[in-house]
């Protein structure tokens, strides 16, 4: 099997897996990076959303070979040491989570949204978050947390 050279959350690791293995299972089963969650396996729920370079992507439908030599950031790699990313902090300040299972994906999607659009409107949030399911129904707090984080980042870029 080919050796894949991966850069996950700043660490370079080699894994010996087929090119077409879904990145989600490389992360979870081989690297013990368990923050990205399985929710559907077909890219429709968003629970595994992480970043490939700076773009949000779905590890459950992305072959590992696509990720080779490109920085991958999961929820575990978002904070700067003990200092949380403003979006993570906003999630705590708004007490967003219920069961928490979808929230790593929601947060990673929101980080990409704010990076692309520093002052998202309600309609922008509707569009950007439309592919992340929260079964507990925390949407109203996710919306508030995105606005809070965006404002924080605008003030303190």
């Amino acid at each position, binding site marked *: 099997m080919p050796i894949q050279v991966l850069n996950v959350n700043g660490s370079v690791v080699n894994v010996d897996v087929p090119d077409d293995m879904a990145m*989600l*299972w490389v992360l979870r089963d081989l690297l013990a990076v368990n923050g990205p969650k399985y929710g*559907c396996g077909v890219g*429709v729920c968003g629970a595994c959303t992480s970043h490939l370079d700076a773009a949000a992507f779905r590890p459950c439908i992305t072959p590992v070979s696509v990720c080779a030599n490109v920085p991958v950031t999961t*929820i575990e790699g978002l904070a700067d040491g003990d200092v949380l990313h403003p979006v993570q902090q906003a*999630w705590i*300040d708004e007490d967003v989570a219920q069961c928490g299972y979808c929230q790593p994906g929601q947060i990673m999607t929101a980080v990409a949204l704010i990076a692309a659009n520093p002052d998202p409107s309600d309609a922008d949030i509707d569009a950007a978050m439309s592919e992340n399911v929260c079964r507990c129904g925390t949407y109203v*707090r996710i919306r508030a947390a995105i606005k809070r984080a965006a404002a924080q980042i605008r003030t303190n870029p």
Partner: protein
Amino acid sequence: MTDQLAPAPPLVESVQHDAPPGDTTRRRFIGYLLATPMLAVAVRLELDDADRAAALPEPSDLIDLGDLIIAAEAAYQYNLRLDVTADNRVRFELPRLEKGQGVATALTLIVADEIDARLADTDVVLSDARLDRPFTITGSSNNVRAMWGPARVVAAAARARLVTAASRRWNVPAHTLVTRDTMVVAPDGRSATYGELSAEAAAVLIPAVPSTTKPASQRRLIGTPTGRVDARDIVTGKAQYALDVDVPGAVPTVVARPPDIKGTVITYDDTVARAMSGVVAVTRIPSGIAVSARTYDEALKARDALQIHWARGPLAGVSDATIRQRLKQINLPLTVPGILVGKVDATFEFPYVAHAPLEVQSAVADVRADRAEVWIASQTPVFALQEVAAAVGLPQHAVTLHVTRAGGSFGRRLFCEPAVEAALVSKAIGRPVKLMWTRVDDMRHGRFRPMSQHSLRATFLLGNVLSFEHRVAAAETDFRHGFGEMLTAAGAELYNGGYGQTAFHTTTKVPYDFPVVDQLLVEQDFGVPTGSWRAIYSGFTATANEIMVDELARRLGKDPVLFRRQRLETARTRAVLDRVATAGSWGRPMTPGTAQGVAIHEEYRSSVAYLVEIDTRGVEPRATKVVVAVDVGVPINPKGLEAQLQGAFIDAWSTMFRAQAHIDDGRVRESSFSDFRWARMQHSPPVMEVHVLPPTTDEPGGAGELGIPAASAAAVNAYARATGTSPRRFPIGQ
């Protein structure tokens, strides 16, 4: 998750005779000190046989299903454990499942408040299944109701011993000492942390101060809006669900399942699959063919390479229409004639709905020759333990079952299929196994809120309601998760027809002073797997009632708020209705195509009202604003309470307007969140405000399921008013 405590050591009995809160002389209270070097308190109510009978509530005292569940657990309710560790942490083992409803945070507040610890020093962990708590169940929104007394009692017992230990150390009278911030403080300013005192406290057999619980006036934390205690773990990805637990060597495992509900394997060929990359084993189990591999990716690919010849399932030829027709046939007739009076008749149809928690069904099992260890997010841990023990042929005491946090449940985790499957595979292959259902498995082989048909009639004369009848025909709800044994233990006088009838009649009350109210349920098992779904029977029955009440008010030419207000039986429900009417500006002018709708619900000793504003002018309707008011008696954590009522609205919107599970020729049509049309951000109201009423009693009510009926009916009532229609079949958008 793996830092398990040693099994509870032998007990050293103390001679405490403190009375638990609100108690009578009949109950003698025994505090147990566990024989550990540090303070570890287990408290239990000790009753002799006569007392035991007397202490259990009479069936006639049981108000609702939650009371029944609490009564079943009454004899075991003080089988709890609280530890004070040397590093000054107060650790409480919670015999409930944290599944997003916030029970761990609520209990952290309750325990920390009672023992006078800082919130940050208090840990609430999920208890393993305990055979000495046989009827433990996370259900019927009873967690806070059931734990409110016992958790405070155990914390008060620990506090009294810590105070006594400090009093001995400093040789000052115990009653002069105060407790705060996880410390005991003397009048002269000396202080010691609980951690420093714990070893000495463990030697206290007779506390020098009473271990009575605090009066409400002395509470510091209960009622304070508090963020989830696990929020940081969640936002950093550290929160561990069953499949995140590090069980060395656990092999990822998936199961090839039939296309039909309950289809079976005729023959299969695993030659190709076994030769594929990473495959460890292929195992036939009753539900299908299990494939274990190095990674889930490899297990899934090998599963797809299996050649399986499936037999059709028992529901071949059965579809939604068949069941709908049958429900119409079996529903009981309305009996009040509508002659010489005015009447309103209505029928409603609700579909099957998947629970679809975002964390799929999963479990880890390590089965050895003489013992087994299981990790699963279970609402019924002892039932799950018993199922595993029976499946692998071990005695119950040889099975350890760890309860992991759940990624949602909504009733689904009352059952524990993946634990049994994982145990069977582990036993067969001789290795620990982590077994995961795929989303498709979950949609097609999960359980469902039962389909139901409703026939209602209200009669009236001169503007006065004379009668209110409701006939429910539903697919049978499966309660075979230890519920029957529990009801029997509660001494519940079962309604004719068994557990479902008992649950129906103890949950679905009409809260209005209508002179004649008659609600009847008839159920039939159609073979589609069912299970309690958030709010169980109330989810459709009370929803139908509140839609009917709006139609009745409309027919009588009355305002829906005023009509309800004049007929509601309790002041608490009137108060929440008044609050949403005021806060939500009920009756404000609305543009055509938009409207307000309102509904109330009372259950679980709580009351709630929803006011929903809707806009029906777009491609699909959208709720634009939701105002909620709630009275739960004693709000423990208003922030968590608000979250439950916000989430309940999303459930309500999804079930009434968008999502369902279809049965097509013995199969479930939906396969994922692509076709199970659960609400997303763009379908959710941008504004939801929740008004938490101040305490109205000293007994907290339930809240997790409370919002479902009122939210569902308020949204539909708004839609009906905006469109001038009378919706009859749900979801409306289908």
